């Protein structure tokens, strides 16, 4: 059971970080004016990226190990859901990220704000994937 709890910890760390960004950080920064909004998002995103990417990788690998050692398809399904953050980020969010990173804060305006609104919606998908993986892992643990 200890191994299953460890997998759950990685998934909840990812979900907690992602949900905080969706529910607290992003709504709050949207209250800033355009230049400050972009100036806050750029360094914040650079710092959050390795945390989220690392947790998704470690959590997914731990879930696969749990599937191998404990048995039960929910461990593998949860791992796939958590790992899905990577392709979704690379294919779905990265084009928006690149445009936002290429914009200087002094050039920010309605277009960069619209991109950040879109980014918030895209990030909500990551929060949902993290929450779904957490619930699947919790169900796997409870079904033992």
């Amino acid at each position, binding site marked *: *059971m200890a191994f299953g*709890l460890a997998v*759950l*910890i*990685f*998934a*909840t*760390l*990812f*979900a*907690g*970080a*992602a*949900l*905080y*960004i969706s*529910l*607290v*950080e992003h*709504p*709050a920064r949207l*209250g800033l004016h355009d230049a400050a909004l972009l100036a*806050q998002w750029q*360094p*914040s995103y650079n*710092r*959050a990226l390795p*945390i989220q990417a690392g*947790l998704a990788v470690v959590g997914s690998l731990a879930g696969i190990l749990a599937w191998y050692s404990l048995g039960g398809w929910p461990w593998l399904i949860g791992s796939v859901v958590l790992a899905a953050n990577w392709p979704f980020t690379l294919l779905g969010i990265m084009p928006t990220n690149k445009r936002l990173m290429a914009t200087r804060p002094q050039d920010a305006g309605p277009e960069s704000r619209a991109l950040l609104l879109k980014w918030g919606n895209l990030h909500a998908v990551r929060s949902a994937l993290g929450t779904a993986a*957490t619930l699947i892992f*919790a169900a796997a*643990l*409870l*079904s*033992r």
Partner: protein
Amino acid sequence: MTLRLILNVFATCGTGTLAGVLLTIGLSFGSYWQSLPPADFLDWFARNGQYVGRTVPFALLPALAGLVGSLWFGWSSPPQRYLWGSALACLAVMLILTAIYNGPLNT
């Protein structure tokens, strides 16, 4: 499925989510706060503090309930008593620090 396992899962999910939130604040969002002049930070917090207040309890309450319950059910086993007790003590220290230091500063 036993009540004990459910409480273990609540404790793990709650503390993990809370740790994820605090990790984001500490490593990502906190640096933005530090970059603001004190007056701007206080203004920002006065306007946006409610987001934090209505989000954190969703992680904190299951964590507290799960840890107290897990400690209760694991009391007869020394390793479990030590581990769940340590986790609960850490959460209690965090809450005390928040109450006596962060809370008054925020207001």
